[in-house]
């Protein structure tokens, strides 16, 4: 089990780092797909099968495709020649994320509940998830569906063509 965990951890960390550091956007997207698949693997290793399958369907099948479409539609694969893909104050960003990691790692250390290993690995059947969604979590479920509908309409409105008589900023 430890072996599987280390493979998955290396896989997700490598692909995640590649996804945010590579210059070519399409390579970033490919690395991102590998990252999403690795996360699905982590869910499987935690016995959350349903969530793993949902992760693959939603992230690899939908969000990665959306990102690929956005990359193709904006036609800016590698950025301008000679300009770094990182913004001016990138060092501060790295420092900030390192600081956040140190803070989280520090708070994780020596926490008594972190060392607990459950006697039996839990499992949640799909029909149990469905029942929970329809009973205890019915209200959040409905709110989420409203949110998704609103997002759908909003995305369509945003991505619609601008009217012709209103030209964009001259570049």
């Amino acid at each position, binding site marked *: 089990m*430890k072996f599987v*965990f280390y493979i998955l*951890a290396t896989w*997700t960390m490598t692909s*995640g780092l590649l996804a*945010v*550091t590579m210059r070519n*956007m399409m390579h970033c997207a490919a690395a991102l797909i590998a990252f*999403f698949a690795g996360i699905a693997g*982590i*869910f499987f290793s*935690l*016995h*959350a099968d349903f*969530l793993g399958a*949902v992760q693959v369907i*939603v*992230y690899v099948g*939908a969000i990665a495709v*959306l*990102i690929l479409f*956005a990359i193709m*539609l*904006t036609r*800016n694969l590698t*950025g301008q020649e000679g*300009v770094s*893909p*990182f*913004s001016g104050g*990138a060092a*501060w*960003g*790295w420092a900030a*994320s390192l600081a*956040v*990691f140190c803070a989280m*790692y520090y708070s*994780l250390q020596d*926490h008594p*509940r*972190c*060392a*607990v*290993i*459950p006697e039996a690995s*839990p499992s*949640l059947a799909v029909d149990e*998830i469905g029942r929970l*969604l329809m009973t205890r*979590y019915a209200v*959040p479920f409905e709110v989420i569906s409203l*949110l*998704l509908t609103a*997002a759908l309409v909003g*995305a369509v409105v945003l*991505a619609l063509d*601008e009217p012709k008589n209103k030209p*964009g900023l001259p*570049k």
Partner: protein
Amino acid sequence: MPTLADYLTLAAILFCIGLAGALTRRNAIIVLVGIEMMLNAANINLVAFWHFLPPATGTGQIFALFAIAIAGAEAAVGLALVIAVYRHFRSVSVEDIAGLKG
């Protein structure tokens, strides 16, 4: 058996990689990618808590499911915004989109 701490550390590392991506890149699409990675890392936490801390009532998984749905909505709207911005400014670099008037 990996412990809860292992999973939480992994999630923290992935979260920080995503954060770094969101903070350091010029391209708005990669900024969105970074945000998606942070949401994924948070989901690992939720599922790990569900797996390791009894009683396993399914709350962690359902919460992660909601987080995935919200991430989907966020990606759709975010990328539509990026495309709208690109149409307007002919650029997706976050440094070029600094002007409020347009």
